[in-house]
């Protein structure tokens, strides 16, 4: 059965959708949607094709936008997406995750909400606010943002989240209670002897290996890591990479040993691709060895970065790999990263990319 592939793109000036087919060579761009609000994450319910876009507008506050017709029309709601009166108000939705019949939303300041009615109303999973370290959380450069949410595809209870400058936290009970899971990840900007704290590490992205929910890959502000025990301990996998800094990570849709990263030139020199030459780095052995993939990517004068949610894979065979840049370009590989095409430039700053594959 022929399939359509839709790229769901969040930018700082609206959501966009690219429509393509399983060849992934010809694309049509639509947008901007969501009234050109800053949109941090766009995801889809793969079962029914409903698209959700989370963001926040300086005038009108946070909301989750929803489209049941592949982006042709949109509604929005933030009912219940609030903290108690008197607390710092939520200013934006940063991450969305559809799982087990519900939709999770991570927000700034960091908190987790869940909707079971298709984003019409939201319930605060307030256990995270009661985590004993909560009062000591300090915002990173982008704020106190909860930007990644993972769940076990076979079990609704476990949840992992990533919060910038705070770290990875895990709940075994659907979000009632939480524990930090940062053992083995570094905080290079702490004084010597204090670089492996219980929390305070700056996670940038998390990616779960397919079929292995205990294997999680992590791109951190300070290094790249893999965990084989659901984040209870992390091992560095940065040897062989050009830097320890980057934002996104993505896993192959079927091979749990294959992971993709886009290292940047460090955190103080502009956060560009190293030497202004773009490369996606792929490991096929769970981070033991790495190979740079450059065919079709700019190898001169590339002064862009790729943000924490701006790389994705699709579920086709061979897998498609996608990333969007801070300078508004979108690159696509239809052959698992071997070669790349730029399918757009001059979009606003790209915050996120996800994929939706539907039967034609």
């Amino acid at each position, binding site marked *: 059965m022929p399939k359509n592939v839709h790229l769901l793109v969040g930018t700082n000036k609206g959501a966009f959708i690219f429509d393509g087919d399983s060849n992934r060579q010809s694309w049509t761009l639509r947008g901007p949607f969501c*009234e050109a609000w800053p949109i941090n994450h766009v995801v889809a319910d793969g079962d029914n094709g409903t698209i959700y876009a989370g963001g926040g507008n*300086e*005038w*009108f*506050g946070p*909301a989750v936008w929803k489209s049941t017709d592949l982006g042709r029309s949109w509604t*929005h*709601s*933030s*009912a219940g*997406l*609030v*903290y*108690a*009166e*008197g*607390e710092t*108000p*939520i200013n934006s939705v940063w991450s969305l995750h559809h799982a087990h019949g519900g939709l999770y939303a991570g927000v700034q300041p960091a908190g987790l909400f869940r909707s079971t009615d298709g984003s019409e109303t939201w319930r605060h999973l307030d256990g995270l606010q009661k985590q004993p370290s909560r009062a000591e959380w300090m915002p990173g450069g982008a704020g106190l943002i909860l930007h990644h949410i993972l769940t076990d595809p076979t079990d609704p209870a476990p949840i992992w989240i990533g919060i910038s400058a705070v770290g990875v936290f895990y709940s075994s009970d659907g979000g009632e209670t939480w524990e930090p899971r940062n053992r083995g990840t570094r905080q290079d900007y702490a004084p010597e002897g204090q670089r492996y704290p219980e929390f305070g590490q700056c996670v940038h992205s998390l990616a779960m290996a397919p079929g292995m929910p205990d294997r999680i890959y992590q791109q951190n502000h300070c290094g790249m890591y893999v965990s084989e025990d659901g984040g209870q301990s992390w091992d560095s996998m940065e040897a062989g990479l050009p830097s320890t800094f980057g934002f996104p990570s993505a896993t192959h849709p079927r091979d749990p040993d294959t992971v993709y990263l886009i290292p940047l030139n460090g955190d103080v020199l502009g956060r560009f691709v190293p030497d202004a030459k773009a490369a996606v780095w792929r490991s096929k052995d769970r981070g033991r060895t790495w190979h740079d993939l450059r065919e079709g990517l700019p190898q001169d004068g590339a002064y862009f970065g790729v943000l924490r949610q701006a790389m994705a894979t699709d579920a086709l065979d061979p897998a498609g790999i996608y990333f969007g840049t801070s300078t508004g370009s979108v690159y696509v590989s239809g052959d698992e990263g071997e070669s790349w095409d730029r399918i757009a430039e001059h979009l606003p700053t790209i915050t996120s990319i996800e994929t939706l594959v539907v039967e034609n």
Partner: protein
Amino acid sequence: MPDTSEATSPSRVTVMLTHALVRLFPDAQTTVTLEAATVDGLLNELDRRWPGMRDRLADTSPGIRRHINVFVDGKKAMLSTPLQEGSEVYVLTAMSGG
């Protein structure tokens, strides 16, 4: 200037809503006549007519959102600002963005 006076009975007022807000609620109108005793009550009445509108204009500080301005008879208002019979209320976006 803090305004702590309490209006006890609703007044009939005319509300002008910014186009940027009305675009978010396709059924809404830019000029609305309604009854409310305070700006807080006015937002509740707007929300009753167009569910979700209050969240777009006020947050849980509690207060009017930082980049939203509400003027009652030409003066910048707060949630507690009372409304008088025949008041004109403007709900506007502030200069913001990049």
